[in-house]
Each structure stands twice: as C-alpha cells, then as structure tokens.
C-alpha cells in the first residue's frame, strides 16, 4: 500500500490551491482527479457560461491574473486553460483519470481506494467541489413523459432542445442566464422564481464584486455570520458576465417576454402549480439589494469617493404582474422542455466516514472536520469567508487549512 502524508481529492481550483500550499510546506502529497485538471469545467459546464466574478478577481496562491481583460468575465474554456496552466506552473502532483471509490479511517490516518489501488494517508483534503450533482425537486417524477428534462450538468446549448416552450425552474445565476439564452433561440420561456439574490452587474461605475470586496462583505468570516446555514445555501446572484449589465435582471427578462411565475410547488395531473408568494419573494430580494447598495453608498461616502464616483441610484423595484398565473398545464404541448436550475450539491457518497449531518452535508468548522482529525474540506460556499464561494476564496482558505494541516501533523509527531 502506498503511504503518503496528504491526499487531496479533486484537481479543480481548490484542490490545486491546496496542493500549492502543501508544496510550500514541503508536505508530500498527491492530488487524485477522476478526469483531467478542471474536469467539471471541461465536461459539466455549458459553453456560454462565464465566471460571475470579474477576471481581475481570478486569483490563486501564487497566481494573479495578468491578461489584457481584467474587467471581463472568463468563459468556461478560459477557466480550464487557466487551471491547466496553474497546475503546470505549480508542478502539482496530479494523478488524472483516478476515481476515488472509498475513503475511510484507518490506524494512523485514512485508507483511500482509488481505481484499483489502495493508498494510506495521514490527512485527506476533500476538494471535489460543491457542484457534483443537481438538486432536483421530488416532483420530477410527476413531469409528463413527453417533456424533455435537463439539468445544468446536461444542458449544452439551445440547439439540443426540441422546438416549443421551455420551463426553467429556479432563478439563481444559472436559471436566469439559461432562461435568457434559451429565449434568444426563439423558444418561449417561463421562469419559475423562488428565493433569489438580486444585484446589479455594475453600480456607480464599478463591478458589483468591486463593491462586495471593498465593503468587506466577501471578507466576512463564517464564524461571524449570523445565519451561517442560510448563507451557505443562498442561491447565486442573478448576474451574468455579458456586456449588457442588466441582461439577467428579472425586469429585463420580463420586458423581453420571458414569463415570470412563482416557485414550482408541485405537479398534479400534469399541471404545474406555482407559489403565490412571488411578490414577497421579489420584495425580499429588492429590500436586500437596497440594503447592500446603501452599505456601498455609506462606504463610498466614508472613504471620500462621492465626487469621484457617479451618483448613487436605485434600481426599479421588481415588477410582478398581479395576474401572474399559478398553474401551467404541462400536458397541453406548450412546454416541451423542463430545465431544473434548482442548484447543485456536492456528492460524498464515496466518503465512508460518519461526518454527515441530517441533511447529508459534512459537519465542519471552517473546513476543519473536527470529528475526524486530519480530514479537511475545501472549495465550498462560505467555507471560511463569503469569498470561499468564489475561486479567489481558495487563496486564504488554502492558507488557513494548509497551516492547520501542518500543525496537525506536527502535533502527531510529538
């Protein structure tokens, strides 16, 4: 059996960042990757997807973006190229095409079965990402047979869809982006909107992520967030990396003819029923956005930037038609495709260690799985700060967890 100090599972941005930290600390390790570096970005992302964060924010340990489009938004292919280059630069010991089947505790650490090999490691870092499988409502079983169902992991582009109307369920960044893209293909789109996060792409001449960074929102630590469970489950903001800054705002989608309805509740006898809470859902999102914009304005004022920046303003409230339909007959032939954009979840079915809570999530303290010393989690939303949700969050997260892992190893030697 191969003995190694640390095994990192997953060669995405988080696993590669951790590898770099372990190398900095001269900790021998291997990165196990089921496919190639940036596998999910290669195989499970639709081609038009771009990062929500502007390119200048694409940072990893020892890597800062130095290209010619710092204000742009990197396409999926660009993320693949960047991570591939990063793995090479960092000389990360990645074993590609290596599928992890089981991880369990063993004397002195962990046993990892990968492909047909057994490895023994003193520490394990789980970096397989938050987006392994789609979260799909149980009502999927009631979707009438002729309707094609897709998820963000199986969606590629509108040409794969049959002709006819499309029901997009979910209004996170994914849902609004795909609703807009499919609508542009000429198909009538209905968008079912539950709880969502509304933000303008740009505010007072700056990208919204500039504001999120400047005001300290992205830096908020996990142990200082009032409702951490909620923060970790928040849908991604309704943004897109396109030249039209309002392209995915619900008011814009509505004006373009996309039909906005409430959260999908259930499907009975082929009829989809939507929540009557749409107005309040939109009001909550508007209120929350305005609280953040007020915080941004206060910050700008306190830093004497009011003369330098364009004036403060507010977006129009989200328009909700009081006659919004509560039902949609899925058997009429009007809808031919249903796209579940209801979020993605991690998959730890191969982790044979009882560290899950009642919802199947790994219990951890800022990425440290305290119940199983030597086990770490990385690359998850709001893992240690709100920035953890995004690529650059791995810079400080991997630093902190690398240091923790190092001191754990030292404490074992004592």
């Amino acid at each position, binding site marked *: 059996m191969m003995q190694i100090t640390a095994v990192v599972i997953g060669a995405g941005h988080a696993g590669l960042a951790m590898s770099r930290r372990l190398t900095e600390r001269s900790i021998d390790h291997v990165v196990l990757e089921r496919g190639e570096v940036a596998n999910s970005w290669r195989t499970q992302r639709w081609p038009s997807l771009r990062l929500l964060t502007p390119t200048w924010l694409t940072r990893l340990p020892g890597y800062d973006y130095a290209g010619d489009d710092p204000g742009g938004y990197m396409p999926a292919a660009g993320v693949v190229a960047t991570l591939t280059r990063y793995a090479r630069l960092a000389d990360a010991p990645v074993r590609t095409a290596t599928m992890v089947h089981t991880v369990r505790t063993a004397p002195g650490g962990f046993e990892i079965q990968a492909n047909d090999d057994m490895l023994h490691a003193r520490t394990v870092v789980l970096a397989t990402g938050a987006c392994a499988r789609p979260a799909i409502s149980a009502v999927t079983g009631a979707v009438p047979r002729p309707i094609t169902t897709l998820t963000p992991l199986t969606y590629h582009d509108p040409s794969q869809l049959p002709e006819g109307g499309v029901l997009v369920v979910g209004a996170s960044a994914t849902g609004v982006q795909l609703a807009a893209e499919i609508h542009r293909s000429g198909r009538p789109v209905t968008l079912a909107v539950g709880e969502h996060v509304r933000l303008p792409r740009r505010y007072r001449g700056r990208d919204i992520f500039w504001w999120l960074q400047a005001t300290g929102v992205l830096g908020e630590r996990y142990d200082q967030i009032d409702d951490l469970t909620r923060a970790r489950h928040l849908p991604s903001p309704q943004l897109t990396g396109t030249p039209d800054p309002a392209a995915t705002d619900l008011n814009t989608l509505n004006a373009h003819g996309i039909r906005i309805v409430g959260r999908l509740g259930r499907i009975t006898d082929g009829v989809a029923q939507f929540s009557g809470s749409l107005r*309040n859902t939109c009001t909550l999102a508007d209120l929350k956005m305005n609280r953040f914009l007020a915080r941004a304005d206060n910050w700008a004022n306190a830093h004497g930037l009011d003369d330098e920046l364009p004036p403060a303003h507010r977006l129009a409230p989200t328009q909700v038609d009081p006659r919004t339909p509560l039902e949609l007959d899925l058997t009429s032939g009007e809808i031919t495709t249903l796209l579940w954009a209801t979020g993605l979840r991690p998959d730890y079915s191969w982790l044979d260690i009882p560290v899950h809570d009642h919802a199947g999530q790994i219990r951890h303290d800022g990425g440290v799985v305290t119940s199983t010393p030597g086990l770490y989690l990385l690359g998850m939303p709001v893992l240690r700060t709100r920035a953890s949700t995004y690529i650059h969050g791995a810079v400080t997260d991997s630093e902190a967890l690398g240091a923790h892992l190092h001191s754990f190893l030292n404490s074992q030697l004592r």
Partner: protein
Amino acid sequence: MTITDRPVDNGVNVQALLDARNALSAAPEAAHFTWRASCTWRNGTHSHSTVAGFAGLGAEQQHRTTYEFDTDHPECFASEDNGATPVEFVLVGLAGCLTAGVAAVAQHRGIQLRSVTATIDGAMNILGILGADPHVRNGFEAITVRFAIDADASRDDLEALIAQSQKRSAVFDVVANPTNVLVELA
C-alpha cells in the same frame, strides 16, 4: 433600526425562539409537530370544532384549555349564521400568523411596536363553489393583507418587517403553496 433608551419589549421571548432553533437543529426529530382539530356537525351548515392537543417535541402536548369554534354560513346563504364561515377562519389564521410574525421579527430586530392592525380581504367568485362555472376556482382569487403599524422604525424597516414575516409564516406558506390533502372515511 432605532436605538431607544428602554429595551424593546413586544412581549415576544426571542431568546427562547433562538434557543429552540438551536436545540431542534441538533435534535431534528423533536421538530416534527402534528397539529389537530376535530369538528362535529351540528345542523345545516353549522359545525362545532375543538382544538386541544397536539404532538411535538417528542411528546403529546396540551393547550392551556380546550378552544372551541363554530363555523356556519351567513343568512344570505339561507343559513343561520352561528359562526364565521370556514373561509373567514382561513383569513383569521393568515392574519394571526402574519401578525405574530411581525411582533417576533420586530422584537428580534429591536423595533418597539405601539400598535399593529392587519385588515385582510379574500376575493372569491362563488360561482366556483356553486358549481355554476367550471372555469372559476372554489378558493380565493386573491388575498390582500394591509398592515397599519405604529412603531419606532422607518418605512423601509417596516416593509422589511412584513416581508420577513411572510417569509417565515406557516399559514402564508399553506395558503400560497400547494399541500397534499388526504380526506378519507374513518
């Protein structure tokens, strides 16, 4: 939010609610409640309902006393009007739930309430329940709740208060979202 000299007291024990949330997150099985009512037909459209016990926190629980309710239809429906109509009870439930939510959220956010009044309308086309028009549903076409709130808070804070109250309201969820309902012979 407003900072006042006196501590905010809307009569809601927010700490107990927060403690309950933490305790039940750790022991999720205790969070499964069953609410009950029983209803006995009297005569005509008049029925008499009681509410006494419920299950929750892993045990049978009792209200302080048995609560009794009469439901009936008004005289213009050729009934005796021995009580509010069942649909009015739904409005009572929704208004009571949202108003309790307003008080709890206000307490949590440090907003002192002086008065809260909710008026609630449910529009209904009774051609639905009469079976006279298959295109008209039985239930409400729409429900409107209007809150008049006197409190130490800005209008934006009050808007946020009623929005959060809706978000956390059980009856709002029951009314706005589908629920599986099983009715069977005993």
